[in-house]
């Protein structure tokens, strides 16, 4: 059976999409990350932006500097590369979350829906490292994979007009956090005091596609403490680096 992937398709005259699959998986995400790292390293003339997503990479370019066919030729050799720079390490960003009371307005609903206690939901939510498949929708909004199916919960039937910045939630089979206040339909089970998007910092976002996020529970007091550290500009994200044994 012919596998049409990977393939390059034109997206108008100033972009191409490099597709690796039509589905989501950690393996595909790894291929995308390797491809993205390798072409970023190369600094191909004419490329103005690169967006890695679940199963493809959108590459914007200036046709004044490179034409479609030439760009495809340059990209081709990267399609089949199987290793990249940071392939051997797993970078995990730890995100503190207060799940108590008004910080997690929908936690009770999620628990009831799952037939579990709220403690069990928190235990499940904080027991995994979630792969950041991509960022989109807002700066720093992570599309995470790996949510435990026991706590899959449908989105709100009527979205909230405003979800507070730092809200951590579950929407269907996805989990994630909102760096910025926004309307949204996710079930909010907790809130983080950290700024996942902080324009005053460099980098302004502490993680990127290919990193992992782990949530850990904190008290209301700790929440205030970290909130003040962020306000003073002294908060530092805790990051764990593990050897990537799966490679």
């Amino acid at each position: 059976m012919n596998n049409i992937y990977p393939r390059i398709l034109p997206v108008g005259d100033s972009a191409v999409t490099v597709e690796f699959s039509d589905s989501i998986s950690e393996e595909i995400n790894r291929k995308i990350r390797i491809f993205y790292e390798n072409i970023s390293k190369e600094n191909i003339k004419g490329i103005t932006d690169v967006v890695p997503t679940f199963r493809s990479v959108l590459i914007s370019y200036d046709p004044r500097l490179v034409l479609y066919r030439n760009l495809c030729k340059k990209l081709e050799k990267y399609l089949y590369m199987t290793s990249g720079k940071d392939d051997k390490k797993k970078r995990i960003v730890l995100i503190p979350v207060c799940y108590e009371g008004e910080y997690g307005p929908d936690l009770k609903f999620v628990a009831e829906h799952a037939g579990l206690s709220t403690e069990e939901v928190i235990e499940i939510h904080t027991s995994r490292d979630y792969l950041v498949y991509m960022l989109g929708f807002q700066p720093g909004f992570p599309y995470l994979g790996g949510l435990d199916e026991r706590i899959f919960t449908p989105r709100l039937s009527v979205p909230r007009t405003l979800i507070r910045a730092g809200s951590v939630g579950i929407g269907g089979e996805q989990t994630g956090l909102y760096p910025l206040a926004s309307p949204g339909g996710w079930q909010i089970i907790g809130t983080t005091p950290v700024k996942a998007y902080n324009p005053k910092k460099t980098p302004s976002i502490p993680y990127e596609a290919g990193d992992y996020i782990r949530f850990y529970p904190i008290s209301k007091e700790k929440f205030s403490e970290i909130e003040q550290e962020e306000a003073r500009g002294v908060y530092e994200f805790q990051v764990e680096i593990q050897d990537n044994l799966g490679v």
Partner: protein
Amino acid sequence: MGILFLNSGLYTTVQDMGRNGYQKSGFHVCGAMDRRSCLLANMLLDNSDNDAVLEFTMMGPKIRFTSNAIIAITGGNYSPTLNGNPVPMYQAVYTHKDDVLEFKFAADGNWGYVAFAGGLDVPMEMGSRSTDVKCKLGGYHGRKIENGDQIEFLANKTHLNNFSSRKLDVPNFTADVTEIRVVLGPQDDYFTRQGINTFLSTEYILTSQSDRMGYRLDGAYIEHNEKGSDIVSDGIALGSVQVPADGKPIIMLADRQTTGGYTKIATVISSDIPKLVQCKYGKKIKFKVISVQEAQALYRIELNEYDAIQNQICKSEPEKVASGNIIKRIVSIFKK
């Protein structure tokens, strides 16, 4: 030295050519909706291509100059007046301290631009002065202009050489139906043959549910095949034409989200984005398919045109150029 907003207008923002390089983190590109008009305004004033300008729509601003300046107005025709007198578009114009520049409603076109010699002084954020209102980033404090706001110029430029050469034809955007050329894909294989035919044969109406994020069109329903209307979220390019399950096209523009899960039937070519965005709500649009190669050839012709304009502005004699059309245009520019 700069400007004071006596009236902000309905939606006035500072824009340049956009914020590139950060889409992977979820940042929008933003930038001028009509990059051609933005570029021409800067070229007329010897500004750099990426100098920040004002962009406005629906109802334009009313501005008082706090110092002498030189301006160029391009894009949609908002009946600009200087101290109550009509002021020409698409040419460099001297203004003086305490002059009042006013824009009203668009007689023609949708997005208006005014560039100031020396460029607008707002902080460069992540390589751009474009306003990202959602992220509260860039431009004037990350938001649209309000009454009473003041912006300075980056440089105090009150004199330019070759002033009489700083004049271009004024385009019009009055067509009832505008042909917009597209390259098919990347999800054209999610549509039936009939769906694609409908897309290419219908005169779609530009609805008022349109803004800097995207233009929503109304018209004949575009049919998907069994693959459906949803895809695993992927990147959205400028000019991507999304078609959700309701079968109506949405063209993604400057403030678009970086990723999305609707099928994209085609992408508007770069050279046709300016005339697309200048369509007033209620006007019609008809799509035509061309190849990537043809689209890129058109883009290069456009670049050559800019070079010719640049030469015309810098020298007082017409330059020998390859294309007959460009010669005609230059000749007409010099007719006084």
